[in-house]
Each structure stands twice: as structure tokens, then as C-alpha cells.
């Protein structure tokens, strides 16, 4: 009871104020992400309201902001273009259900396989995607647009030097809108981009045929949305954990995101997840509790429904300026400097994640690439940890090989090469009691070595095979046995 109260009402005044700052920044983002996905702004705005409110209640990380996001929006483009909005809504519902399933299976723990380099690559790729999504607004337009965007960025970054009491993105929107109207500029406005909400969202069931074919169409998109959404949410949760020095419930967060997306599909909203940039803005503005995200969603709805006509005349240039700010804030600047200082393999993992994401416009593929690469690099490093020593008997007829270290698929080739088959011997002893045999690749390599020596006419004896192969963890569940760690370490 006390924990519940603290999460909701532990920081009321600051949460309500921070929620307002966040809501003001959410409006341009929700509109911008709707445009990325190719749907009317109202789809993103309804989604942001619903996701923010529901994750505030059901999520596992108080103080984190979830809404319609760029990471998920880029995944929807093709589906919307080829099949239309109804399929997107169905995909949103399915993505939510998949996330609930992931949370129920406690897949949040799988996050530990996503290394720091992959996470850095993720945020950098995300920042680049957000920036690239602004390019259509910046190409083939008159100088007025450039001037407006530049002025917007000037206000966003300049105003905080004068006062931090009013959100500078809000001032940017108000000033640029005023200037555009006063000078009667011929530039694009939010109203040109599609329909804005004029009512509260209503419950609706996506109009799609419930067939296997439909599932085949939406499932790949839903799966990608579910994965990317959870990744960004869990990373953001970790970031908020670090910033506020508190703990979060990662599996509850998975389920919360799932509930939010499922429900959002039924009120005509697109799928979303936690937002890195907005969550930072929230923490910076003093938001800590669930109330901050809840309030942000409610303010957002009040603002767009109440001020819909005013939102329509905001010039796109103002939104572009704000999105460039979000992109810059999301990008990990220190990772560029760290490229030279970090090990090459880490840098390659980070860059590969960024490049594959930017090319595929799919963060899921980028992360998968990064995770696979880091796994391979890790295997490569561990493969170097083995050594073969040998001693020749005084009469020169027998040799004893002592093998130590890690034997597995990545080291089995070097392992085989460490033996000298050209030496004519009568007896060969291979002592593997100091080695860890991790998989059947190394067992096969050992078999082959024995066979080769026999072909050269030597008798082969293997010592310590039992203790070495005990480390085939899959079969013998070594970790369950007492003293298992000692066994691994004492060689």
C-alpha cells in the first residue's frame, strides 16, 4: 500500500509540472511519428495518450514516458502503404499480445545478452532514424523553411540560458506559429499532414478479415514492433533506473507495454513504447512518479482535443526543429569519442548495429546483428584461452600432450593444429584433465586427432576425458552441482 502510494503520489507537484512539459513535447513527436508511419496525425496522438496513461498504470518503471515512438513507427511504413490503417491497428494489437506473452515468460531477462555496445548502437541508430525522418520536410522547400527551422533551434537551445521556467519547445512553437501567420508565409503546416483529432478516442475493432493470410501479413510487423518496443522500453527503464538511482520491475514493464499497445490498437492508435528522449526530459523536469506519465497523457488529450484548430496551423518547421533537438539529445555523443578508446571489437559491434539499422530501417535487425557479432567476438576471445604443452620421453618413442583451457567450436581448429602428426611415435598420451570441453565440435576434433595418430602408427591414450567432458554444461547441468565453479576455476 505504501509502495503504491509512493509511486503515484510521492512527488505530486513536480510530477504534474513535468507531465505538462512532457505533454508539450509529445505533441510534435506524436505528429512527426504519425507522418513517418504514413498515417494521420490523430493516430499517433491517440496512441500517445493511451500508451502514456496505460503504461503509467501497468508499467514497471515509474517516471518513464511511453508513447508513439520513432523506433516502432519506422517498422510500420510498408504495412500502412500496402494494406492501410486497419492492418496497422490489428498489427498493434498483436504486437501488444506478443509483448504480454514475453513479459509472462520473463523474457526481460534476455536483455543481458544485449551488450553495452549494442545498446549504444541502438540509441545512435534511433537518433539517426529520427533525424532522417525530418529530411522530407527539409528537401525541395524554400528558404523560409530553413530560416524557420534555424530560428526554432536557436530558441530551443538559447532560451534556457535566459530562463528554465518555461519549456523552450513550447516557446518555439508559439513564436514560429505567430511569425508564420504574421508574415503570411507559404509553408507547410500540421493541418496539411492529415486529420487531427476532434473528439475523444472511441473503441473500435480493426476492420480486417480474420484469416491466416492476414496473420501472415501482420505477424512479421507485429513481431518486429514487439521486439523493438521491448528493447527500447527496457533500455529506457535502465536509463531511468540509473538516473534516479532506483529499481524497476522489467517483466512488469514488458506486460505493461503489451497491455498499452493492445488497448491502443482498439482505439485507433499506433503501437509505441518507452521514449528515451522524453523520459530524460521528464526526469530533468523533476518527474519521478507514475503520475508524471499519466498526467502527460491526459494533458496531451486535453490539449489536442481542446486546441485542435490551433495545432493545425503550427508550421511543420517548428516540429522539425523540435525533432532535430530530440535526435541530438538521443544520440550518444560520447560514443563517437569512445570509438578510438574502446576495443576495436566493441566499436565494430556498435557501428554494425547502427549501419544495419539505418539501412534496414529496422532496429530489430540492427540489434540482432549487434548481438550476434558480440557473441562471435566473445567466442573468438575465449577461444584464445587454451594451451597445449608436450614432453618427449627420454627414449624418444613416446610423447605426452597436456591440454589446458577452453575447447569449443571456435578453438577446435587451433587445437588440432597444436599436434605434430609428422613425428614418428610409438605411444601418445593426451592429458585433457586440465581442459574444458564445451561442445561436440571439440569432442569431434579430439576423435580426429586420435585417429590421425593411429594412422601414423602410434598407440593413443587419453587421460582425464571424464573430468574434462563434465564441463559439457548442457548435458550434465554442471551449474547445479556443488563445487561446480571450483571445478571450472581450478585448472
Amino acid at each position, binding site marked *: *500500500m*505504501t509502495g503504491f502510494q509512493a509511486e503515484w503520489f510521492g*512527488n505530486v507537484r*513536480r510530477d504534474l*509540472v*513535468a507531465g505538462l*512539459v*512532457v505533454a*508539450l*513535447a509529445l505533441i510534435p513527436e506524436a505528429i512527426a511519428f504519425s507522418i513517418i508511419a504514413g498515417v494521420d496525425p490523430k493516430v499517433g496522438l491517440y496512441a500517445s495518450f493511451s500508451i502514456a496513461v496505460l503504461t503509467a498504470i501497468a508499467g514497471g518503471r515509474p517516471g518513464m514516458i511511453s508513447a508513439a515512438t520513432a523506433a516502432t513507427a519506422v517498422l510500420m511504413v510498408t504495412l500502412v502503404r500496402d494494406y492501410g490503417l486497419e492492418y496497422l491497428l490489428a498489427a498493434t494489437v498483436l504486437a501488444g499480445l506478443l509483448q504480454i506473452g514475453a513479459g509472462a515468460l520473463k523474457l526481460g531477462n534476455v536483455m543481458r545478452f544485449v551488450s553495452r555496445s549494442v545498446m549504444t548502437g541502438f540509441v545512435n541508430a534511433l537518433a539517426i532514424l529520427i533525424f532522417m525522418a525530418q529530411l522530407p520536410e527539409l528537401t525541395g522547400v524554400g528558404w523560409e523553411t530553413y530560416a524557420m527551422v534555424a530560428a526554432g533551434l536557436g530558441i*530551443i*537551445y538559447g*532560451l*534556457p540560458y535566459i*530562463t*528554465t*521556467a*518555461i*519549456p*523552450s*519547445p*513550447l516557446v518555439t512553437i508559439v513564436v514560429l506559429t505567430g511569425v508564420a501567420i504574421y508574415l503570411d508565409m507559404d509553408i507547410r503546416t500540421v493541418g496539411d499532414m492529415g486529420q487531427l483529432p476532434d473528439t475523444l478516442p472511441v473503441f473500435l475493432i480493426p476492420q480486417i478479415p480474420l484469416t491466416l493470410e492476414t496473420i501472415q501479413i501482420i505477424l512479421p510487423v507485429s513481431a518486429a514492433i514487439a521486439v523493438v518496443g521491448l528493447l527500447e522500453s527496457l533500455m529506457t527503464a535502465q*536509463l531511468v533506473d*540509473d*538516473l*534516479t*538511482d*532506483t529499481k524497476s520491475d522489467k517483466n512488469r514493464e514488458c506486460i505493461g507495454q503489451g497491455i498499452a499497445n493492445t488497448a491502443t490498437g482498439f482505439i485507433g492508435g499506433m503501437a509505441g513504447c518507452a521514449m528515451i*528522449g522524453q523520459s*530524460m*526530459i521528464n*526526469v*530533468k*523536469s*523533476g518527474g*519521478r512518479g507514475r503520475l508524471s506519465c499519466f498526467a502527460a497523457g491526459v494533458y496531451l488529450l486535453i490539449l489536442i482535443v481542446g486546441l485542435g484548430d490551433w495545432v493545425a496551423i503550427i508550421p511543420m518547421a517548428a516540429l522539425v526543429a523540435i525533432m532535430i*533537438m*530530440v535526435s*541530438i*539529445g*538521443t*544520440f*550518444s*555523443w*560520447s560514443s563517437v569519442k569512445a570509438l578510438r578508446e574502446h576495443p576495436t571489437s566493441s566499436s565494430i559491434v556498435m557501428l554494425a548495429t547502427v549501419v544495419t539499422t539505418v539501412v534496414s530501417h529496422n532496429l530489430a535487425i540492427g540489434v540482432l546483428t549487434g548481438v550476434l557479432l558480440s557473441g562471435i567476438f566473445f567466442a573468438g576471445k575465449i577461444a584464445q584461452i587454451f594451451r597445449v604443452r608436450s614432453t618427449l620421453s627420454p627414449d624418444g618413442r613416446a610423447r605426452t600432450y597436456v591440454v589446458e583451457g577452453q575447447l569449443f567450436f571456435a578453438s577446435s581448429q587451433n587445437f588440432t593444429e597444436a599436434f605434430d602428426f609428422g613425428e614418428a611415435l610409438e605411444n601418445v598420451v593426451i592429458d585433457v584433465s586440465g581442459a574444458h570441453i564445451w561442445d561436440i565440435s571439440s569432442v569431434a576434433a579430439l576423435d580426429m586427432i586420435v585417429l590421425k595418430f593411429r594412422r601414423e602408427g602410434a598407440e593413443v591414450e587419453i587421460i582425464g576425458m571424464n573430468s574434462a567432458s563434465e564441463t559439457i554444461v548442457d548435458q550434465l547441468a554442471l551449474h547445479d552441482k556443488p563445487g561446480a565453479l571450483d571445478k571450472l576455476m581450478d585448472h
Partner: protein
Amino acid sequence: MPELIALVDGSTYSESVCDHAAWAASRLGTGVTVAHILGHRQGVKTDLSGNIGLGARTALLEELAELDKAKARLAQKRGRAILEDAKARIEALGVEQVETRLRNGDLVETLTDLESDATILLIGKRGEAADFAKLHLGSNLERVVRSTTKPVLVCSRGFKPVKRVLIAFDGGASAMKSVDHIARSPLLAGLAVKLLTVAPDTPEARAKLDGAAALLRAGSFDVETEIGPGQPEDVIVRRIKGGEADMIVMGAFNHTRFRNLFIGSTTTELLRSCQVPILLFR
């Protein structure tokens, strides 16, 4: 081995907690661990500019860490002072073995780590932030009592020597546990004990009461029993106000939080209205 854990927070009740701890320590012949737990401090600085620039993550993290650091330092300094005072007070009352513990974290989580070799926890009825006018109990009190497996001595505002003990006996599991514990512990040995059951006088209730009395008499207590109808909280509060006992022993929070939310809890009512220390068993 220190067996008493006294929780102090620097409020008015801390002195009383020390006095009660010294009293219990001298009766039990053990030492006291005085613990002060620094709650989670949260440095919040409000910057409503709503923008994030290059390196925002790192900058924000450093800024917040810096804020927390300053607060944590201050809290630590204050915590050490509180512990020093408490230690001095308990030592002055004749307890030789007094240890102090200063810990970071959530009170309940930290207690779970600390209490493993303790026999009794001592806590003040209200804490730093308590609102005396409204008779509110400390917000941590119920959390502590509900989370711990050890008996909790909830200390009243001032210490008075304990001579007569009232055991509120409802025949429930935690009441039996409390009688069993008292019969075997030197804590209340030699004091006048009254077993009071507030319930209709049925043979069943009578039998349980007599069983408890026999258990206590076997531990050479001077026991008096009484059974009578009424609302438990009303009857007990009246007895205490009438000066019939200067300590209550009872089983605590036998019902779920959900029920308490609507019906209220006997434990809470007694803690609120009685000006004597109460030893709670879960």
C-alpha cells in the same frame, strides 16, 4: 551477541526507544544494536526547459548524482550523530554492549537483512514526519510490523518502568505465539501478568485462556485471567487509561490489509490510543 535492534530516526521517540532498549537489554542480559536507516534520498532539481542537447544523458546523470551526493553526505553526518547520541544514552543506562549500524536503503528491506540474529525489534510509535495533532501513527510502523518475523516492541513517547503487563489474548495463532514466547523469555519474568480475553464467555474461549494461563504459571509468572464481552479496542483502551497495566502484549495485524482498509484494525486502534509500550507478535 546483540539481540535487540533499536531503530532510531532522531525524532522525539528515539530517546524513548533507547530507554526501552536499555530496559529490555538489562532484563535479557544482552547487547543492543542501534540502527539508523537512511531512506532513499532523491535529488530533484526542476529544469522545465524541456530540451535535451548533445551528451544530455551523461550531463543529467552527473548532475543528479552530484545532487544526491550532497544530500547523502548530510544525511550520513546526521545519522552518525543520531547513533552516537543513542549509543551514549543506552550506555549511560548501564548496557555494556552497544553497537551501531548506519545503512542505506529502504527501511523494510534493510531490516530483513539486519534482523536475522535479533530477538526483538524496537521502534518508536511515530517517526520524524509524524503529525501529532491527528494521532497518526508513523508510516513505517505498520510496514515494519507486517514484514518482520520477530516480535516488535512499539515504544510510547516516554519510558516508564514496567510493572504490570496486559496480554490481549484472542486465542489466535499470534496470541498463542506471544504467550509461548513470554513464558520462556526472561523479558517480563517476575512481573504481574493479566490475560484478558474480550469475547463472550464460552467454554471454548475459557479453555484457551486457561491453557495460556497454565503455560505462563509454569514459567513462574503471577497470572490473573479475565474474560468478558465487548469491543476489544474499547475494553483494552479503558483498562490502560484506568492504569491497570503499563505494557500491552498482543498478536498484531491478524487480518489482511484489504480488510483493514474498510473495517480498521484493532492493532492500529490500540497503537493509536494507548500511551504505553506495546509488544507485538505476528
